[in-house]
């Protein structure tokens, strides 16, 4: 999948004549290759969920281009079935995203009915296999259970199974473990990684937690106020962050260390901007410890600063 200069705006009406524009995603270009995981890391309101929804066509882009398997699907709306079989999304909340009145069997059969009516020889077998793949085993034990009978981690596996059952080529996983207990998070992510390795799926992993992105992705794109401010190989971005926002974000992540309580953390002041009224120039400049002359006037462009490592910041021009 290739996203080029993708923009997703929400238009809100305020009063009779005023229209507010929320520039949730404002010119993002990214590539997702077979068998690779790209993490989209950022804080609330940076547009990461909108980016995910736009790329699987749950939300219409305002501008830009989405190319999938060589096809321009930006404005495709008639034959969406073709695309839905190939691109799936997994949402954050394992408690709200499953219909409580449907058994696991029903939940997993639904996408087969909707997207493959009659084309799957033995849906039950396919469902059992997929349950095994997400390690809800033995599958017979889960088929006729209802979501409330499962733990959070098990529910999230059902969510993953529901996405996998159509054998997608591209999956958006929007904070798939943020509601799951710390001791089980790594389990879900490891499972994900294994499945992805086996199936060679391309994955967009959306998270606010750069430390899980570290273990789970090949590339990281850091988003701030609707834009990608830094992009590169995961280890490169984490070990050698270039954008002052990325640097601050990494410094903000708590680490289990008894020495921490004896020192203050270098923090980024302020809070992420409102996407209705992002600051002019570089959107991070009001919070940036390194801002200088051009930052409040000229918007920096994403540029390759080191091989494969891109950053949008005037410090590197």
């Amino acid at each position, binding site marked *: 999948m290739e996203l080029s200069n993708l923009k997703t705006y929400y238009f809100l009406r305020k009063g009779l004549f005023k229209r507010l524009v929320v520039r949730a995603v404002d010119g993002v270009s990214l590539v997702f290759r077979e068998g690779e995981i790209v993490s989209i890391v950022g*804080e*609330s309101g940076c547009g990461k969920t909108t980016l995910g929804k736009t790329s699987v066509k749950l939300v219409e882009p305002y501008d830009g281009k989405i190319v999938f398997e060589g096809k321009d699907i930006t404005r495709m709306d008639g034959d969406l079935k073709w695309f839905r079989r190939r691109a799936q999304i997994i949402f954050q909340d394992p408690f709200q995203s499953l219909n409580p009145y449907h058994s696991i069997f029903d939940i997993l059969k639904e996408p087969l009915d909707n997207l493959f009516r009659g084309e799957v020889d033995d849906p039950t077998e396919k469902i059992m296999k997929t349950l095994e793949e997400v390690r809800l085993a033995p599958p017979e034990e889960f088929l006729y259970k209802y979501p409330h009978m499962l*733990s*959070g*981690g098990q529910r999230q596996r059902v969510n993953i199974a529901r996405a996998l059952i159509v054998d997608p080529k591209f999956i958006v996983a929007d904070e798939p473990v943020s509601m799951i*207990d*710390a*001791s*089980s*998070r*790594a*389990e879900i992510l*490891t499972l994900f990684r294994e499945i992805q390795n086996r199936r060679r799926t391309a994955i967009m992993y959306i998270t*606010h*937690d*750069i*430390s*899980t992105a*570290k*273990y789970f992705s090949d590339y990281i794109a850091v988003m701030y106020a609707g834009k990608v401010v830094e992009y590169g190989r995961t280890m490169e971005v*984490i070990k050698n962050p270039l954008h002052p926002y990325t640097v*601050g*974000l*990494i*410094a*903000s*992540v*708590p*680490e*289990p*260390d*008894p020495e*921490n*309580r004896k020192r*203050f*953390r270098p*923090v*980024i*002041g302020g*809070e*992420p901007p409102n996407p209705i009224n992002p600051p002019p120039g570089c959107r991070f400049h009001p919070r940036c410890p390194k801002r200088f002359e051009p930052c409040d006037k000229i918007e920096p462009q994403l540029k390759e600063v080191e091989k494969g490592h891109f950053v949008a910041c005037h410090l590197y021009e």
Partner: protein
Amino acid sequence: MGLLLEVRDLHLYYRTIKGVVQAVDGVDLRLEEGKVVGLVGESGCGKSSTANAIMKLLPKNTARYDGEILFDGVNIIDLDDEIFRREYRWKRIAMVFQGAMNSLNPVIKVGDQVAEPLILKEGYTRAEAEARVKELFRMLNLPESFVNRYPHELSGGMKQRVVIAMAMVLEPQLLILDEPTSALDVSVQAQIMNLLKKLKELKRMSMIFITHDIALASDLSDYMAIMYAGKIVEFGTIEEVLLDPKHPYSQGLIAATPVLSRDVPPKFLPGNPPSLINPPKGCRFKDRCKYRMDVCDNEPNSIKLSDSRYVKCFLYH
């Protein structure tokens, strides 16, 4: 350094249609003046219930509430409700509730919400109360003028500062913070943690810091209490618990925490915590424990490993 709080064999059970929930089951805790204990555990293990038990805020369906809570030498469990309400709750022991920033009264200016107990409980005049609130705002890095704002005019981090101000306004000796940053962005979370550190130093306030995030707890805590299924399975100084965890659950929880600065991938703990209704006899962690022995079907005692540390596990009996 004086002992401020000593909790012994605290129980809080709830009556439900499905049975009795043993949310707090024989909890021991101790805290000195000016120190912070991190109460860490996964969702539903009884952290908030422990806090509510110390605040003596019990729901109608309480089935059992006993043990000892010695606060400054007085067993507040036995204390007359009226006396506790008048002389202890909010005045000497205060709490920032989980999710409190979303339950601020939307139609009252935040300054007035913070000032209320000063006027109602302490007999301050309006002007005196306002001066006091402004002083508090300054200390919490909130502009003084924000006393005249309504909750919706504040960002998440600002609202969290306001609810901290509400808990601190009567200068309690003990402040309980229940997940005070979990709804905030990492960069804002880091600001609040710095602020709490400053308060700890400046006011020499004792705190119980409740979180599911062991890394975050290490940012502030001198002691760490690891809670699992209604029990504190390990208690010790932060150095003891983080650097040399003894209980297999503490070990698992620490190993499951992803760390940005190190290259050890997180390992997961298989399984889920037991239900607190009819939990298994004996050690509640045994079904997930790789060291499980026959003897684990009995209740493990609290084993003292050092002056500051105890653990509940048969490996150390």
